[in-house]
């Protein structure tokens, strides 16, 4: 890691880490509340720890200039290891909270272990920890290959990766302590948000600079998606998290928006975090790794163009369908519904594009579990976007909203689409990044695939059942014209489905654990006999960089 940096970069790293340590120290020493002090301590430990790492390599010889004839893959390698770590952690916490809903005494009577504090750990760990690291790893890899150039800089890729993981760490340690601003999928408090802002802008600058150095006239499709993901997430993050802290040294802040405006801003953010973090980013992954693995060109270039701009434009309107029948003005609800319905066109455009690319490669899908991960992901992408448009319809939403149907829907997307495409991409990336012929165990990839598929199906069917039953029970009247069920009746009816869901989650977790083991064994395994570096290198060597 450190040996790859030039001595100037090493010194710069020390300077940045010194500033970060100072920040942590001030936070810890001058805090107005204990939680802020604890987080200051965490920042300090993180920065000092990395500082020692850099110091230990400070006197290493300068990296040779031959590095410019190679891609810069070290950050991707570390990001992949972090991805698998976050996956196992986040899924384990998720399964724990799933059991908690079936057996509420699993909180052990501890303040930190109640459902409300643990659930955001799960969502943040899987969305931002697992998903985010997978996106960083693959975007670094893809942008270099498709632009035939090395990443623009050696320090900033590390700053983005490690800074981003500090953000994840601060978030998931904050929730059990009680640090949250209670905005769904944007729970971190103001100072963590500010830090992410710095990291994310660096990411954007790094990406744009790398694109600017490309040796190809055209910007490849996958990069449009990665670019939209980075840009729009920055927009969403900044607007949604505008807040006034209680004091500069206090962990709590108050959102600038209140009531109905806050609700609209929050779902504009929340829905588009799904659109741009969990869809656009992973579509970028799909548009690169699926054609490469299938050894087929993408089915239709024009369809990619239409899909891309359709998604970028229309998704941003669709958030308000989360607020049907609420105090949000009717016209905004209707606009949201309308655009959610039209959104089906570009979404299915991408899903069809992926599946049609596989036409002529079905024998590969049959034999190669890695490609099967990607194919099933594309199918789930199509199914989930259809379900999403369907659920945006007012009448359907009146039944599904507030029930487990929504939970089932987001997990069909999260497990079926996001996680499967990521595992598919990682299984094709890991052997090539570490110079191995193939994954350590093909059998384990196969086992992971079936566990993941079975887990997803059990989970989603359980939640569909519980959601629809609960929604119907809420609105059932007896012949006398009064409500037939009390609320607790519906809670009791959910019990078997909650157990089924937790079992489905456990299967999915088992698959991911096998995957993590397989990745680790591949990394530790012997290098391929003939290292065919071949054409996997930048097109032109840029002298003096």
């Amino acid at each position, binding site marked *: 890691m450190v040996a790859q940096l030039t001595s100037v970069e090493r010194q710069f790293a020390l300077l940045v880490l010194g500033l970060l340590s100072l920040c942590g120290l001030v936070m810890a020493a001058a805090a107005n509340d204990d939680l802020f002090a604890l987080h200051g301590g965490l920042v300090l430990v993180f920065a000092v720890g990395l500082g020692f790492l850099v110091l230990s390599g400070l006197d290493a010889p300068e990296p040779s200039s031959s590095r410019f004839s190679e891609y810069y893959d070290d950050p991707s390698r570390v990001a992949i290891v972090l991805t698998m770590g976050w996956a196992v952690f986040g899924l384990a916490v998720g399964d724990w909270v799933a059991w908690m809903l079936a057996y*509420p005494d699993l909180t052990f009577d501890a303040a930190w272990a109640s459902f409300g504090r643990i659930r955001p750990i799960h969502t943040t760990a899987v969305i931002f920890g697992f998903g985010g690291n997978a996106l960083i790893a693959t975007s670094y890899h893809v942008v270099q290959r498709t632009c035939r150039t090395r990443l623009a800089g050696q320090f900033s890729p590390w700053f983005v990766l490690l800074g981003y993981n500090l953000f994840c760490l601060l978030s998931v340690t904050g929730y059990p302590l009680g640090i949250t601003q209670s*905005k769904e999928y944007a729970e971190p408090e103001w100072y963590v948000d500010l830090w992410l802002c710095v990291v994310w802008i660096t990411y954007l600058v790094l990406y744009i600079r790398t694109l600017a150095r490309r040796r190809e006239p055209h*910007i490849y499709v996958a990069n449009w998606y990665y670019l*939209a993901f980075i840009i729009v997430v920055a927009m969403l993050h900044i607007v949604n998290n505008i807040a006034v802290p209680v004091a500069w040294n206090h962990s709590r802040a108050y959102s600038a928006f209140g009531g109905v*405006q806050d609700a609209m801003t929050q779902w504009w953010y929340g829905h588009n975090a799904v659109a741009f973090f969990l869809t656009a980013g992973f579509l970028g992954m799909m548009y690169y790794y699926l054609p490469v693995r299938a050894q087929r060109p993408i089915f239709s270039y024009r369809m990619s163009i239409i899909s891309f701009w359709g998604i970028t434009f229309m998704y941003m309107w669709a958030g308000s369908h989360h607020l049907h029948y*609420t*105090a949000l003005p009717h016209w*905004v609800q209707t606009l949201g519904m309308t655009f959610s319905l039209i959104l089906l066109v570009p979404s299915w455009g991408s899903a069809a594009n992926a599946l049609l690319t596989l036409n002529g490669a079905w024998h590969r899908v049959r034999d190669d579990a890695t490609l099967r991960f990607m194919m099933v992901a594309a199918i789930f992408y199509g199914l989930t976007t259809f379900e999403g448009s369907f659920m945006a319809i007012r009448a359907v939403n009146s039944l599904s909203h507030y029930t487990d149907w929504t939970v089932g829907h987001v997990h069909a997307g999260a497990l079926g689409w996001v996680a499967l495409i990521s595992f598919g991409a990682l299984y094709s990336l890991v052997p090539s990044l570490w110079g191995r012929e193939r994954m350590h165990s093909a059998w384990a990839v196969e086992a992971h695939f079936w566990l993941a598929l079975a887990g997803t199906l059990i989970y989603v069917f359980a939640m569909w059942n519980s959601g629809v039953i609960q929604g119907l029970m809420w609105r059932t009247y007896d012949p006398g014209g009064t409500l037939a069920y009390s609320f607790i009746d519906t809670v009791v009816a959910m019990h078997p489905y909650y157990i089924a869901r937790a079992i489905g989650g456990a299967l999915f977790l088992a698959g991911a654990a096998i995957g993590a083991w397989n990745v680790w064994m591949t990394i530790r395994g012997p290098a391929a006999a003939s290292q065919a570096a071949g054409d996997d290198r930048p097109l032109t060597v840029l002298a003096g960089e």
Partner: protein
Amino acid sequence: MFGLHYRLEKHGLALVLGIIFVAAIGGLVEIAPLFTIDETVEDAPDMRLYTPLEVAGRNIYIREGCYACHSQMIRTLRDEVERYGPYSLAVESKYDHPMQWGSKRTGPDLARIGGKYSDEWQVAHLINPRAVVSQSIMPSYRFLASTALRTDDLGLHLKALSRVGVPYTQEMVTNATADAIAQASADGGEGLTTRYGTATQARVFDGNPGQVTEMDALVAYLQILGRLTNAAHANSQPPEE
């Protein structure tokens, strides 16, 4: 059209600007008018402010992630109005930074929970939900009753809230800590009612007069939910079927 795109995909910065432009339209059209159009939020002349104790309770509600299971938004649907009470109006959450409308009901909606149960019921329920609702799957919040409430920074909280548009006066900010302690005691205090109105509920919410606990604050907050204004009850429009 594809000719234009041919050029666009060769210029990184043009692509960046294109994405920003295209992505910005939807949000601008839907969000910006909400801040200017008067009809977004109804007038409610009788609207009260949260007292400092209720703000502290609300922060505990937020800290414990209650929104993950309980909504605070009764929709304009007949069965919801019959189950929970009049549907929610925008004005009722005018001072909620951030809002707690929620997106999931693992437990019932809480928008009109205030005054529905006694303090004793709320405390017993928070200490052990299954003691009062035998099949509840809510975790217990026993520790609230034994944790002292932090009140010394409440002035800062009110100050921050006033910066984002909640009309707290300087006097309210100055007296925040005293008002919180007064509201959690049996006799309340004259200052409290002059500042926050005579309808302000002052009593020992957790049944333990010795100490102002987090339980006091949370119960005070739960008991005010849906009672900041009567506008929803006065609203005569029928819900949708």
